[in-house]
């Protein structure tokens, strides 16, 4: 659901997902490496995860025994040219001093914290963060939730009380144990009005943490929220309504240390002197706006042990990312930062084109939307008319380029749990004749008497400005309606969109997941969401499905709701984004093997505590051909 703000517009975020045992998870951004692979998206995207079993997990079978050493890749590489922090390096790995990964962060994006629970949108663009403690669960490259700090979890009958059993081995590197109190203190902090946490809505409905909204509103103290400890290693979450997707949602749960939070404040991780880590890395250096360096935490006791010993994040302007990659300064550039021109150069270059790796990133969909409560878009025929004038294939071919997206005829991207894209693809078809007919039926034949429109964009880069211009031209040509495209600054756009009543009559925007469950994406269209479209039936379906425990029934109800959404056309879907990263060939690891969807880029949420990619990535011994000395 977000997207890159300021840097925008592309700040990459984590999102994520999963529906393995049927749960979705979320995650955030991060980019990362990948292995050689085709520059075109896999011909077939993964089928929608059928019938994710969103049943509350009464005994999490995937739980790892507490004492089990962790994290080696599931296809363990043969051993090894060395041992680091007690783990053996893969056979083809470069020596430990070369186990260094470098990438840029956007030095124009606001970057105030490396902790998700302190701020999401001020977390920098493409910054390496959330590495200093373990989240309760984390995702693998197929977006399946795996045990993180929680070794097992289960719920009561109606999925309103969830118990997480924490890994008792976890220690902060000041020698104190990680306890449930750290998680409780973190959630209490994030729900306090003082924190003004910019992601606070996330733990609201659906499946809101008990008293979460009341704490934000100051009606109860944060100590009253439904997060509590039962003993040092048992953490309980209570929700207002059944929340079968809660474990997935709790990917975003990397805790702050209670002690430092109280002693220093929420920004204690901004300086190495006050920073404390129980995660796979420790903070070594942070020069604001310039450089951020982590080293592997020698005292890490969790199950996500890294091979890569040093992570270097250099602040640079996105326009120079590609040049820096070519100059060999960084190992990886996230596709969001590559321009159409960059991609043309890459496609024409035999070497670079081998370094492209595709990801689905956060299952982001771009769409047109309307103010459906006021004329002319309160007439469904007008909205439907607009839904038939977007020639997605042509846009992908001529503007977006095939590595960067696939046509969207509905909201949930193929591969996303509950996606029903094939069945829904016959509704918003490209059919200008039908569009003209519908418009005439609504009383605007040939565009007569139709008001001139302004198509609002949210700080979009040139490629999507071009998409909008092409759509505007088609609307003029096919429907006779004047459309002016206006690319707004991010905050201006969001303030106008969220205003009640909304100030945006006609706009183009995108949404990507926060956690991998249809309740997340489809929740955007609830009457409490950001768009001015109210449909009681839709609201009831989505809210009911969100709370349902029968996985199959649940998905079916979500699919019915999405069908209604597509038919009612409060939005015209344009394309689902795929992201083509550039990654040096010496980065290896299971995280870069093709996932179920055939994508072999570093999948969301990338290098962070929310992914087990950390424990599989390594630098192989061909690195010295391209990087003779390790970056310092």
């Amino acid at each position, binding site marked *: 659901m977000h997207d890159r703000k300021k840097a925008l517009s592309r700040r990459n975020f984590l999102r994520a997902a999963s529906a393995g045992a049927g749960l979705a998870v979320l995650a955030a951004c991060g980019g990362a490496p990948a292995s050689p692979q085709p520059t075109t998206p896999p011909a077939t995207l993964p089928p929608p995860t059928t019938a994710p079993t969103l049943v509350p997990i009464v005994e999490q079978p995937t739980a790892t025994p507490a004492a089990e050493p962790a994290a080696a890749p599931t296809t363990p590489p043969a051993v090894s040219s060395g041992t680091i922090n007690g783990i053996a390096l893969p056979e083809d790995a470069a020596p430990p001093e070369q186990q260094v990964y470098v990438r840029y962060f956007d030095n124009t994006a606001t970057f105030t914290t490396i902790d998700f629970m302190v701020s999401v949108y001020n977390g920098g663009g493409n910054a390496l963060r959330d590495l200093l403690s373990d989240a309760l669960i984390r995702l693998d490259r197929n977006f399946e939730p795996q045990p993180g700090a929680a070794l097992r979890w289960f719920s009561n009958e109606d999925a309103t009380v969830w118990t997480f059993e924490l890994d008792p081995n976890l220690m902060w590197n000041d020698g104190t144990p990680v306890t449930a109190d750290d998680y409780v203190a973190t959630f209490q902090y994030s729900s306090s009005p003082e924190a003004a946490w*910019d992601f606070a809505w996330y733990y*609201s409905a659906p499946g809101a943490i008990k008293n979460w909204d009341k704490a*934000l509103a100051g009606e109860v103290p944060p100590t009253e929220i439904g997060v509590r400890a039962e003993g040092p290693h048992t953490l309980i979450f209570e929700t207002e309504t059944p929340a079968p997707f809660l474990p997935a949602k709790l990917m975003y749960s990397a805790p702050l240390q209670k002690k430092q939070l109280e002693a220093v404040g929420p920004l204690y991780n901004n300086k190495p002197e006050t920073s404390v880590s129980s995660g796979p890395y420790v903070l070594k250096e942070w020069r604001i706006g310039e450089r951020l360096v982590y080293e592997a935490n020698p005292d890490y006791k969790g199950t996500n042990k890294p091979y890569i010993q040093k992570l270097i994040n250099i602040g640079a302007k996105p326009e*120079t990312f590609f040049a820096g990659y070519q100059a060999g300064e960084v190992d990886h550039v996230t596709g969001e930062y590559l321009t159409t021109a960059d991609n043309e150069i890459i496609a024409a270059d035999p070497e670079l084109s081998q370094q492209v790796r595709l990801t689905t990133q956060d299952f982001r969909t771009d769409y047109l939307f309307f103010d459906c409560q006021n004329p002319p878009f309160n007439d469904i025929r007008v909205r439907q008319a607009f839904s038939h004038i977007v020639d997605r294939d042509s846009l992908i071919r001529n503007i977006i380029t095939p590595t960067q997206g696939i046509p969207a005829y509905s909201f949930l991207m193929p591969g996303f749990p509950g996606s029903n894209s094939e069945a829904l693809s016959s509704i918003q078809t490209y059919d200008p004749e039908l569009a003209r007919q519908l418009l005439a039926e609504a009383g605007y034949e040939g565009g007569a008497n139709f008001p001139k429109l302004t198509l609002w964009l949210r700080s979009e880069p040139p490629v999507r400005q071009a998409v909008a211009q092409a759509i505007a031209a088609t609307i003029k040509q096919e429907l006779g309606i004047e459309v002016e495209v206006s690319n707004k600054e991010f905050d201006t756009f*969001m*303030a106008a969109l969220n205003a009640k009543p909304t100030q945006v009559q006609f706009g183009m925007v995108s*949404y990507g997941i926060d956690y991998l469950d249809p309740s997340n994406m489809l929740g955007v269209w609830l009457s409490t969401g950001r768009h001015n479209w109210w449909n009681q039936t839709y609201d009831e379906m989505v809210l009911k499905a969100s709370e349902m425990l029968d996985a199959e029934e649940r998905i079916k109800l979500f699919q019915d709701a999405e069908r209604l959404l597509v038919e009612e056309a409060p939005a015209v879907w344009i394309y689902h984004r795929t992201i083509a990263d550039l990654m040096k060939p010496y980065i290896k690891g299971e995280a870069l093997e093709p996932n179920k969807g055939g994508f072999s880029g570093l999948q969301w949420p990338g290098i962070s505590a929310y992914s087990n990619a950390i424990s599989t990535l390594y630098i192989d011994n061909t690195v010295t051909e391209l990087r003779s000395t390790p970056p310092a």
Partner: protein
Amino acid sequence: MVAYLLQRLTGLAVVFFLVSIVAFLLMHSIPGGPFDEAQMPLPPAAKANIMRKYGLDQPLHVQYLNYMGNALRGDFGISFSSPSETVIELIGRTWPVSIALGGSTVLIALGGGIVLGILAAIRQNTWLDYIVTFTATLGLTVPNFVVALWMILVFAVQLKWLPIGGWGDDWRQLIMPMVALGLGPMGIAARYTRASLADVFTSDYIRTARAKGLGEYAVVMRHAIKNALIPIITVLGPMVPNLITGTIFVETMFRVPGLGKFFVTSVTDRDYPMIMAVMLLVAGLWGLVYLLTDLLYTVIDPRVKLV
């Protein structure tokens, strides 16, 4: 002179006050606020509570008075976009960097520009003049971000002669940002110097100086330059505050950790304390530079009197 200075400084204080009001009103009138939901709306009660915690629910004049009251006591608040330091600390960390880069650019670009302008004026319509004019026009017309990207591609990516960016580790890191920042001002300086000198060269007193047999060096350096400087100072003086407060593009492009980006990001982030601080800083600098420029006129031209 003292009365004049007092008068000007009083005027400056008034300007300061007016700028603070205008900036305050403007920043509150643009849509969006520092704690707006970036994506999904918060429950209204929660939003209201957050606004209350930060005093943003108060009437504007109360917020303004609170801010100015604190500012007059030296407390400019904490930047929303860099909350681990005060605004003063943030400016103290970044501005010296911009001053270092901008200051060296001022010396080299303006100094170099004036020298080139003099050479072009002396050798009018020769190859030297053409080269200077061409370079100056190029510096003026090619935007600094084009120059910056081009230099990065050529000198850092292809030739690998210069580091791609950074600050403080290697003196060569200064070269590309200085050129990108300085080409425009150098072009302006060269063009104005040439035009102004060329104009002075046609004056009677220059003809007289030559007629009485003074050497060309003495004619130019003793008589012409001084008189040509007034229009040059008028144009170049105001460039200084721009250069020493940094520019977002050149600084972010070459990873110079200066103040420049905050002129843009503070607004896009609705970082109210920072917006106010940079506005007041710039207002103060401009006021001072104009004052200094006026004082310089009296030094250069004794006929100018400050009243």
